[in-house]
C-alpha cells in the first residue's frame, strides 16, 4: 500500500520558474526522502530530511518537513528542462524485522516547458 500522496499529480511550468510539490503521509517516520525518476530509468536519490529537521537545502532543492501535519514539500528553484521527471517522496520506518524499508508516494509528474 502507498504511504504517501503527492500533489499535484502532474505539474507543467515554464523553464526558469520554481516548482513546488507536496507529500502527505500517514504514520510516524524516522525520515523522509525525495527521489527523481526519469522516464524508463531508475530512481535517483535527491535529498533526505530527518524527523527532527524542519528544512533542508541541496543546490536548487529545498525540502521542508512538518511532522505535526505529516507533510513535506519539495521546491525546485530556477527549473531546467532536465528537471522533467517524476518525483516521489518516500518515508522510512523500521519494519518488524529491524530493517528500514521505504514506502513511496504516488508521485508528481513534472514537465518543464523550454
Amino acid at each position: 500500500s502507498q504511504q504517501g500522496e503527492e500533489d499535484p499529480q502532474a505539474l507543467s511550468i515554464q523553464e526558469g520558474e520554481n516548482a513546488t510539490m507536496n507529500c502527505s503521509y500517514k504514520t510516524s517516520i524516522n525520515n523522509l526522502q525525495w527521489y527523481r525518476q526519469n522516464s524508463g530509468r531508475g530512481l535517483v536519490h535527491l535529498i533526505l530530511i530527518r524527523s527532527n529537521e524542519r528544512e533542508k537545502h541541496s543546490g536548487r532543492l529545498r525540502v521542508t518537513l512538518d511532522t505535526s501535519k505529516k507533510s513535506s514539500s519539495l521546491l525546485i528553484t530556477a527549473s531546467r528542462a532536465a528537471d522533467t521527471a517524476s518525483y516521489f517522496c518516500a518515508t522510512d520506518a523500521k519494519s518488524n524485522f529491524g530493517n528500514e524499508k521505504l514506502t513511496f508516494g504516488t508521485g508528481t509528474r513534472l514537465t518543464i516547458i523550454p
Partner: protein
Amino acid sequence: GAGVSQSPRYKVAKRGQDVALRCDPISGHVSLFWYQQALGQGPEFLTYFQNEAQLDKSGLPSDRFFAERPEGSVSTLKIQRTQQEDSAVYLCASSSHIGGTSFSTDTQYFGPGTRLTVL
C-alpha cells in the same frame, strides 16, 4: 564505481511462464531490496536481504514470488506461473546500511529496473 545493474532490462512472458530477474548490487553493499512499480504508481516494497539472509519478505504478493541471494551479492527474483497482474517494473536497490543497527537510514541506490510484460 559501478552502480546497481539489473538484467534483463525488458522481459516479455506468456501467462503461465516462469521468469527470473537478476540484480547486481553495488560491490560491498550489505543490504539489498526489491520493489515492484506498477504503471503510474510509486514503487512498493517486496523483500529485503541482509547479506544472504532474507530478513523481510512481507511485501511479496503471493507464493509465486521467490527471491534469493545465496552468496550475499547477486540476487534473483523469480516469479512462477506469471499472471497479467505481475506486469510491472521490478526495481532493485542496495545500500551499505545494516538494518537494525542504528536509527539512521543510509541511501538506497536503485538500478534501472526490469520491465516485465505478461501477455
